[in-house]
């Protein structure tokens, strides 16, 4: 059995009285792992601790079996895309990426720089300063400097933010490719659908705590199993409410002149049967809308069931 790339044990991190991370324990091995959580969940702080950029307040982090703190040699095997947008604004793209290649003491910094820039679909011959780059181009510049040393561990903090759909697709292809090569790729995101496309294992973190982990499908099911509030627009609210309650797919209903609000524990069953129930009740449906399907409410539910 191969040792995990990242071992996190009882990790805690706080800033004064603010708890950023609390009692995190998990392992990450080769392939893509997505870190999913809302803004402010502690994802960036976790990445900073994992890379040795910040010290844990309690617990331990091991990267390739070593403590990342005060360990510059370990950085030879790590590539990071930090969340902040600022770059060395007066440098050109090639200068910026070649800086990383040179500091990694690569045997051919210029060649590695060209490869890395081409891998993110940018132009190695671009002589404009980075200050002139769009947000998407800056993201790719950060990605290029992260992969220039062909790292075994790639830590990517919201790397798809600011990219257009085509660039997202290309970046996801690159992450998958690196994962298939046996690299460990850890990607953070607060967008569930984005994470789905990684086809990866997921760690769900919110309020600094790990609230779920597993393959995407398992997490998706977990989220589907939670109580769901829906509003159903119809021309016959009382009749439809009665039909839904009788069928057992909802556990509660509130009736208004133009709609019914229901609560269900079986989102999949509800989706399957709502059309048939409406037909049986001779009710016309004008809308079916989840009232709490945003990611924040999903995270809140996951926190609650822990």
């Amino acid at each position, binding site marked *: 059995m191969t040792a995990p790339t990242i071992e996190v044990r009882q990790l805690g991190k706080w800033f004064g009285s603010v708890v950023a991370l609390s009692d995190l324990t998990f392992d990450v091995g080769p392939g893509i792992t997505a870190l999913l959580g809302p803004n402010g969940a502690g994802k960036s702080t976790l990445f900073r601790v994992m890379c040795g950029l910040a010290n844990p307040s309690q617990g331990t982090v091991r990267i390739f079996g070593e403590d990342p703190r005060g360990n510059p040699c370990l950085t*030879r095997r790590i590539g990071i895309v930090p969340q902040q947008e600022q770059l060395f604004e007066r440098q050109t793209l090639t200068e910026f990426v070649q800086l990383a290649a*040179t500091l990694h003491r*690569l045997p051919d910094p210029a060649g590695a720089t060209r490869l890395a820039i081409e891998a993110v679909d940018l132009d190695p011959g671009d002589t404009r300063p980075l200050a002139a780059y769009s947000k998407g181009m800056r993201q790719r510049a950060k990605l290029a400097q992260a992969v220039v040393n062909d790292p075994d561990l790639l830590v990517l903090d919201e790397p798809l933010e600011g990219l257009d759909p085509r660039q997202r697709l290309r970046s996801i292809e690159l992450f998958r490719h690196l994962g298939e090569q046996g690299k460990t790729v850890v990607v953070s995101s607060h967008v569930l659908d984005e994470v789905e496309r990684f086809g990866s294992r997921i760690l769900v973190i919110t309020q600094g705590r790990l609230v779920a982990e597993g393959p995407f499908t398992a997490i998706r099911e977990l989220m589907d199993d939670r109580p769901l509030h829906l509003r159903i627009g119809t021309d016959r609210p009382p009749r439809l409410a009665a039909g839904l309650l009788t069928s057992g797919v909802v556990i509660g209903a509130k009736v208004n002149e133009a709609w019914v609000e229901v609560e269900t524990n079986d989102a999949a069953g509800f989706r399957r049967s709502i059309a048939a129930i409406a037909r049986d009740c001779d009710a016309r449906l004008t809308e079916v809308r989840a009232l709490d399907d945003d990611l924040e409410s999903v995270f809140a539910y996951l926190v609650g069931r822990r």
Partner: protein
Amino acid sequence: MTLSTARSPGAPAASSAFPTVWWVLVRSLATRIRLAGLGLLGVAAIVLGLAAHVGHPDSRPDAAWSIIDSYGLSILVPVVALVFASAALGDLAEDGTLVYLWLRPVPRWQLAVAAFAASVTAVVPVAVLPLVVGAAISGGGARLVAGATVGGLLAAVAYSAVFCGLGLRVRRALAWGLAYLLIWEQAVARVSHGAARASLFVHTRSLAASVAGRPPPRNAVAWTTGLIFPLLVTAVALALTTWSLNRGEVA
């Protein structure tokens, strides 16, 4: 798509990290706004030198020494060093770009020394050189020029080392640095004999006065102490900056 040619374990280093980091930091320090604003302070030293030159020939040495002591070593070099050195690592830590230097297999002492060297590289042409030119123009004599050169260089080195560390560790380092210069260096150390023992200004002006052949200023120390103390402060400051980079938290 392959990146596998990038790394070649055990291959010899293609180039050293130190000059690369130094040059990156020099470029990030030498912004137009900084050069223009601080350049004016340097030009003022030359203008003062010209003013001393047009005065009576007998008064030129005293006037020239006043430029070195009361302007060059008191204000010009420390303030220019504060602005450049506190930004050398401080700006990078604040805007988050330090990670692009820190998360590399580069010994932390090299980052600290490169930041210090970048700061000195900026301070010398912007502050020390105009001070020396001002002293030369004033007509005070070769020894005064030598005093301005030695005192100015030593002050540039010591203040740069101190303010590099301050910029890394302290938010609003400019404000704290100015408070240190005004309260400690220019007020307390001037009146208190004990405090003068721990003042960079007192030591650099003592050495400058000795080299320039001027009478020892108030609270002066021996020229050897004036030379050794700032160098010792420089070494300790660099060690602390290295320690901070090793142990501290990087933005």
